[in-house]
């Protein structure tokens, strides 16, 4: 009991390499498609080739006859399975009943119609081709504004206006603000449909255990527990007889924050055939059947004084919902409304959302989920206002920022910003880019007839989603922390990380708190049979909520450790120091491993204590967190071709306290790259017949390393008072801050031509047309 306890170096704040990476880069990680089981069957789904059609008949005979095919199911077979759930609720929301297989009508290309189950995936694919579906095609509409026009084809015949909901929010006195405005600027701004494009597509393996009537479902998901709760309801199975396991997930970006028809369908198939069944989504299916993101047409109006003070903001938001609701579809645009004032001290707002059905796959959460659209809108409008008033875009932002002494700051949309120093990242970014100097260079460039631009975006976002009353299914997170009898520490988190690096950052926090080495800590997640319950990883919530739950579980555990330490050291004055206890009088100490062993052996217990060292915490956050930052882009336009070169990309992000700067850099880089994708290349395009024109990676242009600028990333650190870790969240920041910086930069480049706004993506042809004198 005289072991010396050495001072452990603190790990929080260190650039520690991700503990997840060795298995990922050596190909030893196990994804859904790596799972093999004895007797496993394979499913292939027959999907609608039409954007809208009546199903007149389905003939499965030829498919069923193919040797190796064990079953073919159509909509009437799965009719009793519950509908694909929508978790969002809004007043008057119209929710189409969405069967897991279409019954008599399809309403988007890719709509599942039948499933073929065979002994191998090749036979399943061949048999799927043999399923004969007799369709009567119907007219389609894929453009949300056209869908609202009188006489447009009705996506759902019962609602000929194609309107799923209207949502209105007022803050302050917006009419007065506009009546008294010295200047008003207006602009239509779109945020195009995007395809999340995770490297790993979706996939499911379902295994029915007839003996105990239980189902194990392995799915590439961000939300194993919510998936279990909802799937159990859909399948009519007791929740405790359904186990959801999330193997390695190769990216989600929100697209796997959902409950999909195919997940329930595989559960149904496994229960029917009594054998394990696997379905792996093809890339084509991923593009046509996994949710898309964005899909906004926004009409903005901003009222201001001539000195640049913003006094009112109006937004009419048309949200392209697609053909039905996935889990959060109608809720996403409401997040845009929450963030519509951005970082600016404006108390008069009005927002009107109209959610529109179209013959397309539903939109839902995609990295940023509502906040990139809001940021793009307000940051474009601020630049348009600055141009109108001939003000420097940096100055107009400084003028309108919420002041440092205003926190906690109540916004016109009903939020309370937790903490902020909005000028800090802007000033730092201006300093890094050398603002004065690049403006001089721009002057020189213009005198030479070159189009060079400087674009600023100062974004705010809403993270750590979120307090339970603000979410459809609970906004807390859970952790169980267990010191094993050997002294090793196991953390079971309800957050379900899938690339965010929480196996590393959580271990850093736990190791620091318990005074053990990082290699003594194992972070376990993504299995409903192992983890108590959880909400999942999305909305930049993992560390701020899940990490905090773990932190509080550890605090509880520490109290117990100290009690055991006191008993074992026979002292009443004991401190918890770096992984063990020290008798403050004698200086004698005992290690965590010794205490743990004694707690499980339980020869003696401290008064009123139980054996073992396990603590669980479900932490309910009192508020969201609100990160912010400034991104600056220097661009040049090739006037002969319209091609854009990004010469500089400066990102200064404030995500609160940083646990691991290496991981934060990675999140910023990835986020910015997806923002650049939206700004420059990506667009999900449907034609008038409902066909996805950009249905493959040959046509849908995701960013490539060779096309990207160097990202000059740095930070300011303003801790959040919402949680004891002081963290805010950074998973989506890069995406949110990026697109307006790019567009502002290119608009600035072309401003000598009178260009005021350009919609994304900034394709070379669009830019070339503007250079030729076309108006934007």
């Amino acid at each position, binding site marked *: 009991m005289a072991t010396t306890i050495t001072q452990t170096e603190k790990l929080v704040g260190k650039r520690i390499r991700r503990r997840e990476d060795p298995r990922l880069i050596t190909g030893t990680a196990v994804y859904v498609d790596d799972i093999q089981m004895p007797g496993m069957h394979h499913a292939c789904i027959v999907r609608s080739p039409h954007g809208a059609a009546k199903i007149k008949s389905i003939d499965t005979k030829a498919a069923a006859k193919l040797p190796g095919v064990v079953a073919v199911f159509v909509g009437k077979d799965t009719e009793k399975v519950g509908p694909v759930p929508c978790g969002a609720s809004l007043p008057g929301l119209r929710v189409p009943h969405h069967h897991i297989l279409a019954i008599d009508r399809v309403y988007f290309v890719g709509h599942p119609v039948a499933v073929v189950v065979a002994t191998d*995936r090749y036979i399943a694919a*061949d048999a799927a081709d043999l399923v004969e579906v007799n369709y009567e095609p119907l007219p389609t509409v894929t453009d949300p504004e056209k869908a609202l026009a009188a006489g447009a084809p009705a996506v759902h015949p019962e609602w000929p206006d194609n309107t799923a909901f209207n949502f209105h929010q007022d803050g302050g006195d917006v009419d007065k603000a506009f009546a008294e405005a010295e200047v008003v600027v207006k602009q239509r701004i779109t945020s195009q449909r995007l395809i999340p494009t995770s490297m790993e597509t979706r996939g499911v393996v379902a295994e029915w255990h007839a003996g105990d009537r239980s189902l194990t479902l392995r799915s590439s998901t961000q939300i194993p527990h919510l998936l279990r709760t909802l799937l159990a309801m859909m399948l009519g199975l007791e929740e405790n007889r359904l186990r959801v396991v999330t193997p390695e997930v190769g990216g989600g970006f929100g697209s796997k924050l959902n409950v999909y028809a195919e997940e329930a369908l595989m559960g149904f198939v496994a229960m029917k055939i009594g054998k394990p069944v696997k379905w792996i989504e093809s890339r084509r299916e991923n593009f046509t059947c996994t949710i898309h993101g964005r899909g906004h047409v926004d009409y903005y109006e901003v009222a201001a004084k001539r000195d640049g003070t913003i006094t009112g903001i109006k937004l009419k938001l048309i949200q392209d919902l697609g053909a039905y609701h996935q889990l959060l579809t109608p809720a996403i645009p409401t997040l845009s409304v929450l963030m519509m004032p951005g970082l600016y001290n404006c108390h008069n707002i009005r927002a009107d959302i109209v959610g529109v059905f179209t013959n397309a796959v539903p939109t839902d959460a995609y990295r940023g989920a509502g906040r990139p659209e809001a940021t793009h809108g307000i940051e474009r409008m601020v630049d348009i206002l600055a141009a109108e008033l001939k003000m420097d875009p940096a100055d107009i932002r400084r003028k309108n920022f919420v002041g440092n002494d205003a926190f906690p700051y109540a916004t016109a949309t009903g939020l309370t910003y937790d903490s902020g120093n909005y000028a800090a990242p802007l000033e730092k970014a201006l300093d890094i880019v050398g603002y004065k100097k690049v403006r001089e260079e721009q002057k020189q460039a213009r005198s030479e007839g070159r189009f060079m631009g400087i674009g600023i975006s100062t974004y705010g976002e809403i993270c750590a989603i979120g307090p339970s009353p603000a979410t459809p299914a609970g906004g807390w997170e859970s952790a169980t922390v267990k010191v094993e009898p050997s002294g090793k520490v196991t953390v079971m988190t309800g957050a379900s990380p899938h690339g965010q690096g929480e196996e590393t950052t959580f271990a850093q926090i736990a190791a620091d708190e318990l005074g053990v080495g990082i290699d003594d800590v194992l972070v376990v997640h993504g299995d409903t049979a192992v983890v108590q319950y959880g909400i999942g990883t999305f909305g930049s919530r993992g560390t701020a909520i899940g990490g905090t739950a773990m932190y509080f579980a550890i605090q509880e555990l520490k109290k117990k450790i100290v009690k055991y330490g006191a008993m074992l050291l026979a002292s009443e004055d004991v401190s918890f120091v770096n992984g063990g206890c020290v008798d403050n009088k004698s200086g004698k100490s005992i290690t965590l491993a010794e205490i743990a062993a004694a707690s499980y052996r339980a020869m003696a217990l401290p008064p009123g204590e139980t054996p073992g060292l396990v603590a669980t915490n479900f932490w309910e956050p009192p508020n969201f967190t609100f990160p912010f930052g400034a991104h600056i882009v220097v661009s040049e336009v090739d006037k002969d071709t319209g091609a854009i070169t990004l010469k500089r990309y400066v990102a200064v992000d404030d995500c609160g306290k940083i646990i691991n700067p290496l991981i934060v850099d990675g999140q910023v880089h990835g986020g910015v790259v997806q923002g650049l994708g939206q700004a420059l290349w990506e667009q999900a395009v449907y034609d008038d017949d409902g066909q996805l024109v950009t249905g493959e990676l040959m046509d849908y242009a995701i960013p490539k390393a060779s096309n990207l600028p160097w990202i000059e990333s740095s930070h300011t650190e303003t801790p959040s008072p919402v949680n004891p870790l002081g963290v805010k969240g950074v998973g989506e920041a890069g995406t949110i801050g990026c697109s307006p910086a790019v567009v502002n930069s290119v608009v600035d480049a072309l401003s000598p031509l009178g260009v005021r706004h350009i919609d994304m993506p900034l394709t070379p042809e669009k830019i070339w047309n503007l250079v030729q004198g076309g108006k934007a």
Partner: protein
Amino acid sequence: MIAQNFEYSAPTDLKEALGMLAAENAKALAGGMSLIPAMKLRLSAPEQLVDLGRIAELNYIREDGGALRIGATTTHYQVESSPLVRAKCPLLAEAAAHIGDIQVRNMGTIGGSVAHADPAADYPASLLALEAKIVLVSAKSQREMPIADFFVDTFTTALEPGEIVRELIVPVEEQSTGTSYQKMLQPASGFAIVGIAARVRKSGGKIAMVRVGVTGLSGKPYRAANVEKTLEGTAGALADIQKAAAVVADGVDANSDLFASAQYRAHLARIYTTRALTAALSRTA
């Protein structure tokens, strides 16, 4: 995204392979960069796939009688990195380096690329500008033709059933010739929205020889003879180049897609012709 059933064979002997390819609905597989995706999308469903990748006698780059002979299964990376190609026919190495990405260049082959005849592929512009010849072989015969006669239309070549590309023959470039391949790439696929290959030689202050190959603009790659004629004999000043480049799309039915309308594509062809000719001229000795 799963191909239909097919037989697969990987002969090591060319004669054996040609024998197999004589069968109906047999298809030659080279690098598979276009055929495999087409099969996975079930756009193509050959019953028998004959993999040419193990036939050693189809993979070579050698100099022979004032020309480079490049075997059909020579990969883009082999062409791009070959000291011989770089020294004796730099235009072809430059074009190869523009193809796809490093993975595609490691798998894709010159023979496979030209046989596929994608109208936006990179090689054809250079091969046309180089006045390359192509050797075709079948179980019955072998023939040689100018590359310009080989490209018939979109995804259509002079290849007869059972016939494959055996080799490309490109003349060794004269040291005084300057060459360049300039391309705007389609950001999703990496193919050329427009790609222009130019070769120029000057003599006595005048343009003595000029060849321009165009890809991506229309249904098939072509040599822009009108550009060549306009530029030949001039001093090769920027104004001369622009005047010549102005006619590159004349009479051509330009493609139109999500990434470039016909009008914009034709404009890009003029710009990239100017750029390719300017770069080529700067490289003349």
